[in-house]
């Protein structure tokens, strides 16, 4: 192995920054912001890894990528080998390298984190995946003979794609049913192109297609076919439900249905999926305004705000009822938003929306908050400050307050047990639902988490489906 460098030499290299588009330039386009490491930078960064005998980083990775293993291959210049190594455990590295919160996962527990700065694992992962894609070398693995079993995957987000990839490699026939006209789930309709280019997603989907996965878009399970139809009439032997949690929350406050008040999902879908940023060349419109207020401070809020900025909005402000310290978004995203001129107002919460006589939003009334006692989540609970209401002008307001679970499957498959909120109950070790032959994973079992957790749950479910099919 690469004993070329001593530990001391490795520690001397400092973490390599990610080259990025300049903020002034990037707010005028939807091109990706981080530009990616060069070959030299990737090798240099990989050299920082100490190749720990007991690598803690792997513990921090929800799918347990052999991190020192792939970093060693990068150091040796074997980028395709590194890609193969990652793909042993993670079939979507180009996506994860871009959207995973590494600073809370592998990089948080990297041996270097405490005294130095962690290896930029995510950036090297992204480099490796991009290198492989650009080389056109992604080899198709040899598939085992067909088993004759058919697996239905409902939803084409990261959970569904993972299950599809695992199952096709076991020799089963796989059909992915997707409600929208394009596969990818939140990766396509939610996460904007300046964070995740469409080529990256399409490449992964094409790869699955090449392996023989059948994608059926425009099919809403629960409406066209029920889960029972799939098992009894359509000849599937097992079903995986990965329908996500994309049912946006509103606050039930006065004026929230005024024109110009959007859920982040609608705002982002109109742009990402329907091309509203290119209206009238594309037919789907979107309300534009001089001032846009975004309510919430998760990744979704950052994405909505940065998208609003790219529609030419001069003043975009994020309003959050707690403080920056409690904001659930990735640090990197808040940093990017700040660079792009997006304002933040902490400790404030909307109480009503104001409109004109034609029903269009003109302003938002907020109330100041302060932090009180900690709540169940351990974060200090925001409490309203008396007589602190104030109005800010806005033509568009975007709710980014998290998601409920989509009701369609629960409503049409009463034998699949859910919580009161509609989250499908599964055995977390297997992904098994209350209905035999039916498994679930991703946001539909957690109520809104991350891409990598959805993939991890997909893997668990795939293993159980395999067991279920072989023990039939």
């Amino acid at each position, binding site marked *: 192995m690469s004993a070329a460098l001593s530990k001391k030499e490795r520690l001397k290299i400092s973490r390599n920054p990610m080259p990025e588009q300049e903020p002034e330039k990037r707010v005028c386009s939807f091109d990706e912001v981080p530009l990616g490491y060069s070959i030299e930078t990737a090798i240099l960064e990989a050299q920082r890894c100490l190749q720990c005998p007991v690598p803690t980083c792997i513990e921090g990775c929800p799918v347990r990528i052999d991190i020192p293993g792939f970093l060693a291959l990068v150091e040796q210049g074997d980028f395709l080998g590194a890609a193969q190594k990652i793909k042993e455990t993670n079939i979507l590295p180009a996506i994860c390298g871009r959207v995973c919160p590494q600073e809370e996962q592998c990089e948080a527990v990297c041996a270097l984190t405490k005294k130095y700065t962690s290896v930029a694992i995510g950036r090297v992962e992204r480099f490796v995946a991009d290198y492989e894609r650009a080389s056109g070398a992604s080899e198709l693995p040899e598939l085992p003979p067909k088993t004759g079993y058919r697996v239905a995957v409902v939803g084409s987000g990261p959970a569904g794609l993972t299950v599809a990839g695992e199952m096709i490699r076991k020799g089963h026939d796989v059909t992915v049913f997707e409600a929208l006209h394009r596969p990818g789930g939140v990766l396509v*309709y939610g996460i904007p192109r300046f964070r995740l280019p469409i080529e990256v997603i399409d490449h992964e989907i094409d790869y699955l297609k090449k392996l023989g996965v059948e994608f059926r878009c425009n099919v*809403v399970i629960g409406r066209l*076919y029920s889960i029972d139809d799939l098992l009894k009439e359509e000849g599937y032997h097992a079903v995986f439900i990965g329908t996500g949690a994309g049912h946006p929350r509103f606050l039930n406050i006065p004026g929230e*249905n005024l*024109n110009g008040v959007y859920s982040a999902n609608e705002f982002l*879908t109109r742009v990402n999926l329907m091309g509203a940023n290119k209206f009238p060349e594309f037919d789907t419109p979107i309300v534009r305004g001089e001032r846009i207020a975004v309510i919430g401070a998760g990744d979704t809020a950052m994405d909505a705000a940065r998208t609003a900025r790219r529609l030419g909005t001069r003043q975009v402000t994020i309003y959050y009822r707690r403080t920056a310290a409690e904001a659930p978004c990735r640090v990197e995203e808040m940093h990017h938003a700040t660079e792009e001129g997006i304002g933040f107002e902490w400790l404030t919460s909307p109480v009503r929306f104001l409109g004109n006589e034609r029903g269009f939003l003109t302003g938002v009334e907020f109330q100041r908050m302060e932090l009180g006692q900690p709540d169940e989540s351990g974060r200090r609970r925001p409490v309203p400050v008396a007589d602190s209401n104030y109005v800010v002008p806005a033509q568009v307001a975007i709710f980014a307050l998290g998601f409920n679970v989509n009701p369609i499957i629960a409503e049409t498959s009463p034998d699949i047990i859910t919580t009161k909120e509609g989250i499908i109950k599964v055995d977390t070790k297997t992904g098994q639902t209350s209905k035999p032959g039916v498994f679930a994973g991703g946001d539909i079992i957690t109520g809104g988490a991350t891409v990598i957790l959805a993939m991890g749950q997909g893997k668990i479910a795939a293993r159980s489906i395999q067991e279920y099919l072989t023990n039939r």
Partner: protein
Amino acid sequence: MIQTRYEVVRRREIAPKTVHLAVRAPEIARKYRPGQFVIVRTHEHGERVPLSLAGSDMEEGLIYLLVQAVGKTSGEIHDLAVGDAFLDVVGPLGRPTPIAEYGTCVLIGGGFGVGALQPIATALRDAGNRVIAILGARQRSLVLLEEETRALCDEVYVTTDDGSHGRKGIVTDVLREIIERAPVHFVMAVGPMLMMKAVSELTRPHRIRTLVSLNTIMVDGTGMCGSCRVVVGGQTRFACVHGPDFDGHLVDFEAIRQRNAMYLAEEREALERRRAEMEESCQVAALAGQTATARQSSTPKES
């Protein structure tokens, strides 16, 4: 299962700017229930627009759509010729209309709503109800599917604003008389917002169960965006997954009317652009010595 080409198999111009289409979509034809709808897209740059299912031919694997050209996208759909295809058709969407043995049912249709009423009337008749229909229109030429409706219902009344056909007046005039004459157990109205509101106001004091089918602006139709949200009984509901049918006595119609006007300026812009493009292509066609069959350049591709 092979991806369908959503081809227009039959096309009938049933009134000015109004077409009745039979579109190949065998799975939807087999699976849909009355009251449900589809969302369609005509081309890669196109909008997703909802259309009610106006019936089906299961044997031929066709769904029926009744489309009124009111803007750019509905205009493009109107102009699809036999053999052309939609790019996407997703459905059936929404909860089906609750069908039961109610007794006497009155169905009220205006505009494209008359299409949705066809399968609902059939299902209610099959469930043992007496079904009365009232079709409203501005004038004779705009009365839609009258003959078809007569074939399905026990009684059919037609009203026109100018009296050029049927009774002069509006649908609620007839509904009031029917209610006064004999007990009515179930009312359903599909059509313009004002009509659905007037019907609901009329039946409210009589406490007759009244459903309306809400045509809000939609994007995905799966409950993911909230574009279709409506206020029913003081609660926010999503028309695409909780509806499209709601209790007319609880609906805030004014809020929907305002929301449906959200993109008026953009819609006008899109329509004018399309007109200009069509004029241009007509001129080009004329120059090339062709007949005036020039069609929109955006013929849908198969995916």
